[in-house]
């Protein structure tokens, strides 16, 4: 003989005991994975950025408008800087989001801090993207011969 015993607790919980009613899906897992994948890419992108701008040639003393114009004449550096901007901003935003979640306890404080963070992120990412794509080496005020 066999008795049909229902699996314990499955689907039979009083809703007030269900802690994960509002599931956030796999968002936190995707965010965790993103930190690792973007982290590896950022090591390459930022080390390359620092080496090209500060270590070779005349280093920081050579950085001016003409230096930026020279770099962004090359689509590789445009894509490099664009990828760095997006990945670093998303990586940094998710890191600060984690820190807010850890230390801000009052719900209103959390909402405000994260609201400010997300607005800053959107503004900076859009501004940086716009600057890379609309850069004009012969902008008014540039006096080099090539722009005459």
């Amino acid at each position, binding site marked *: 003989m066999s008795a049909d015993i229902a699996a314990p607790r499955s689907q039979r919980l009083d809703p007030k005991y269900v802690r994960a009613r509002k599931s956030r899906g796999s968002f936190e897992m995707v965010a965790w994975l993103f930190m690792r994948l973007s*982290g590896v890419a950022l090591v390459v992108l930022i080390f390359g950025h620092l080496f090209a701008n500060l270590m070779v040639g005349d280093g*920081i003393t050579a950085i001016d408008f003409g230096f930026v114009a020279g770099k962004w004449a090359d689509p590789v550096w445009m894509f490099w800087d664009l990828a760095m901007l997006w990945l670093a901003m998303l990586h940094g935003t998710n890191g600060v989001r984690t820190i807010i979640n850890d230390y801000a306890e009052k719900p209103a404080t959390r909402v405000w801090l994260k609201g400010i963070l997300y607005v800053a992120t959107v503004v900076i990412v859009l501004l940086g993207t716009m600057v890379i794509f609309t850069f004009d080496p012969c902008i008014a005020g540039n006096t080099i011969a090539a722009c005459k």
Partner: protein
Amino acid sequence: MSKASSGTLYRGREGMWSWVGHRITGVVIFLFLLVHVLDTSLVRVSPGAYDAVMATYKNPLMALGETALVAAIVFHAFNGLRLILVDFWKQGTKYHRQMLWGVLALWVVTMVAFSIRHLSIAFGGH
């Protein structure tokens, strides 16, 4: 926290301090990133505006700040790679402490090389 909770495997040891260092350097780098996108955006205003702000970065005092920033970036980068190994490498949790000393050794080597080059350029001796 009671005194009884000190002297655990985590608290006050390599794991905790590398975590503290990762958080602090992360926040510092993020704040600089916000400023850095804004200063670079001046190329869209005028060459003069951009060059004027870049001139402040060439001040020797600022070069010390840049070196500190790069020190934060290099630690965050190497410790981040260590975290990935702790998470994904089968032996990662076993060797996390040895890997932290490796991170610090690589950090020192990288920062000595960077500081010599960057500071000699910034202080005009190159």
